[in-house]
C-alpha cells in the first residue's frame, strides 16, 4: 500500500534549532476533544485539583511550533480566538507532527475559546477554530478560579482579566 507514510514521533524536542524563525505569536488552528488522561481525571472527579489543570488546561503543540514560539514543555501560553482568551500550559503533542494546529482537551479552559456557533445543527463547533497563541508569564488558573473569573456568576465587581470571554455573541435577541 502506498498510503501517506506514518510519521515517526520524535522523542527529543530540539528547541534551539529553528530559532531564526522565532515569533512572538503564532496563528494556529485550534482543535479540542478528549484524551485518556483528561477523561480519567475528570470522571474520577478530581476537577478541583492541580492534576486536572495539567490534564485539561494544556495546549498540545507540534514541537516545531513550540520552537518557533520559544516555549518548552509546561511553559504557559495565551490562546486567543474570536470568542475569548485563556492561559494554558503548552506541551509536546504525542500526535505530532501537525504543524499549525494545537489541541486542547475539552474542559473549562478550552470552553472559553471554542465557538458556540451551532449553525442550527445543535452541535457547537469544537474543532477547526482559528486561534493565535503567544507566550505569557501568567499561570493557568485552577478550575474553580477559572470558572469564577470567566463567568463571574457571584462576583459582579470582578475585573476582566486574561481569562475572559469576548463580547461576541450569536443569536441573542433574534427570537425575543
Amino acid at each position, binding site marked *: *500500500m*502506498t*498510503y*501517506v507514510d*506514518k510519521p515517526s514521533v520524535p522523542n527529543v524536542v530540539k528547541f534551539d534549532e529553528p530559532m531564526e524563525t522565532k515569533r512572538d505569536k503564532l496563528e494556529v488552528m485550534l*482543535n479540542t*476533544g*478528549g*484524551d*485518556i488522561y483528561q*477523561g*480519567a481525571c*475528570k*470522571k*474520577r*472527579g*478530581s*476537577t*478541583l485539583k492541580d492534576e486536572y489543570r495539567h490534564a*485539561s488546561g494544556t495546549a498540545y503543540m507540534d514541537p516545531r511550533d513550540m520552537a518557533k514560539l520559544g516555549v518548552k514543555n509546561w511553559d504557559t501560553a495565551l490562546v486567543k480566538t474570536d*470568542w475569548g482568551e485563556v492561559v494554558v500550559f503548552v506541551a509536546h503533542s*504525542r*500526535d*505530532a*507532527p*501537525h504543524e499549525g494546529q494545537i*489541541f486542547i482537551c*475539552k*474542559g*473549562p479552559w478550552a*470552553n*472559553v*475559546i*471554542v*465557538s*458556540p456557533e*451551532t*449553525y442550527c*445543527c*445543535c*452541535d*457547537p*463547533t*469544537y*474543532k*477547526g477554530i482559528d486561534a493565535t497563541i503567544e507566550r505569557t508569564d501568567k499561570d493557568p488558573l485552577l478550575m*474553580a478560579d477559572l*470558572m*469564577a473569573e470567566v*463567568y*463571574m*456568576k*457571584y462576583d459582579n465587581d470582578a475585573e476582566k482579566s486574561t481569562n475572559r*470571554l469576548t463580547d461576541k455573541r*450569536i*443569536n*441573542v435577541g*433574534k*427570537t*425575543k
Partner: protein
Amino acid sequence: MAYEEPITDYDHIVENCTCAFCGCNCDDLTYLVKDGHVVGVRHACRLGASKVMEDMDQRLMVPMIRDDNGKLVEVDWDSALDKAAELIAGAVRPVFYGWSETSIETMKYGLELGELVGAVLDNQATICHGPSLQAVQNAGYPVMTLGEVKNRADMVVYTGNNAMNSHPRHLGRYSTFPRGYFRKRGRFDRTVVTMDPRYTDTAKMSDIWVGFEQNGDYEFYNAMRAVLRGKKLKKDIISGIPKEDIEELVESMKNVEFGALFFGLGLTHTLSKQRNIDIAISLIQDLNKFAKWNLIPMRGHFNVNGFNIFMAYEMGFPYGVDFSRGYPRYMNGETNTIDLLTREEPDVFMVIAADPGAHFPGGANRHLANIPVIQIDIHWGPSTELADIVLPGSFIGVEAAGTSYRMDGVPIYMKKAIDKPETCRDDEWIVNELLKRVQKIKGVDAKMASK
C-alpha cells in the same frame, strides 16, 4: 508505566459488574471492595477504573444551596428539594439537561416532570452525536451489534475518533483483538483502518492510516463513493490523499467479508456536521452492493444512547424535546440546549448527571451565570461552580442499579455493588421527589401507576 503491586487488601469481590464510563458498557468488571469502598477494579480500562475508584475528596455528600454571599451552604434534603421544586414549578422555559450518566428508570420520572412543567429535555447527544442522529433520520441506520463485529468483521474502520483514548477496551473487547467465531485468529484476521487528520494513538496501532485534511471529511467520503460507483476522479489529490490511494482503499473495502465502521466526534464537530455522517452512511449503503458493511456511532457516555432510545420510544424524538407547547416538539437549532443558551432563553436550568461547566462553550455557559442552576451529580465539578442548588445523587452501576443502553442499542442491567453514602440519595428518588413536589405546587394529582 511503573509496575503496581496487585491489590490484596480487600474484604470481598463483586463480580460481573458493568462499567459506567463509555458506550462500551463492559459488563465483565470485578470490583474489590473494602470498608464499603471500591479499592480495586479488575478488567476495566484506565478510564473505567478511575471512574469506579472515584475521588472521595470531591464527592458531593449533602444537599447545598447558594446563599446571598455566593457560598454553597449545607441544607437538609427537604429544603433543597422544596427550593428546587419551587424554581422548576415557577419557570417559564426550564431546560433539563443531562441524563446520560443515569438510569432509564430516572429518565422515566424526568420525562413526566418535563411534560408537567413544559420543559426542554435534552442530553449530551446535543454536543456530541446529535448530528449523527440527524443523519440517521436523513439517510438511515445500517446498524449491527458489537457481538457481530467480534465474530464476523474482517475489516474495522475507525473514522474521526480515537478509540484508544476514548473507548480503550473497544478494540480489545469488541472489534479488533478478540477471537470470534469466524475470525479464529483475532487481530491477525482483521484489517484496521483509521481515518483521522490526527495521527492518534488508534492510528498508531492500525494497519492503515488515512490522514485526510482537517475539515476534509466530506470531500474524502464523496471521492470514495465516486470511486465505488466506477467514476474516475478528476483531481490528483483529494483532501490531502492521493487519488491512487483512495482507489486502492476502496478496492480493499469492497473485497472484505464483513466490514464495520465506527465513527466519532471528529465527524460531528467539524464544519459539515451531520452532512459528514450522511455521506458516511451513504458510503456504507453503497459498499453493501459489494460486501456486508455496517456502522456504529462511538457513543461517549454509558447511557447517552439510552436517553435517545428512551425518548424516541416514548416521544418520537431522540433528544432536544420541547414540551413548552404541551406536546413534544423537536427542531434542530431551536430546541437544543446550546442554541437555547446562546439565545439566552432558559430561565431555570437543571443539570442531571452531566457537566455543562466542563463541556459547553463559554458562549453558552455564560447564560448559566444569569439563571438559577440546579445540579444533581456525584462530584464537585465545574458545573458546581455555577450551580445554585446541589443535590447529591448516587453512582449508577456501583451504588445503585439501573438500566443502560450500550452504543449498539443493547440494553444492559447494571447491578448495585456497594451502598451509597448515607446522606446521598438515588437519582431516581430525587427526580421522583421533585416530581411529587412540583405536582403538589401545581395542584396536579399524581398519576396512578398503570399495571
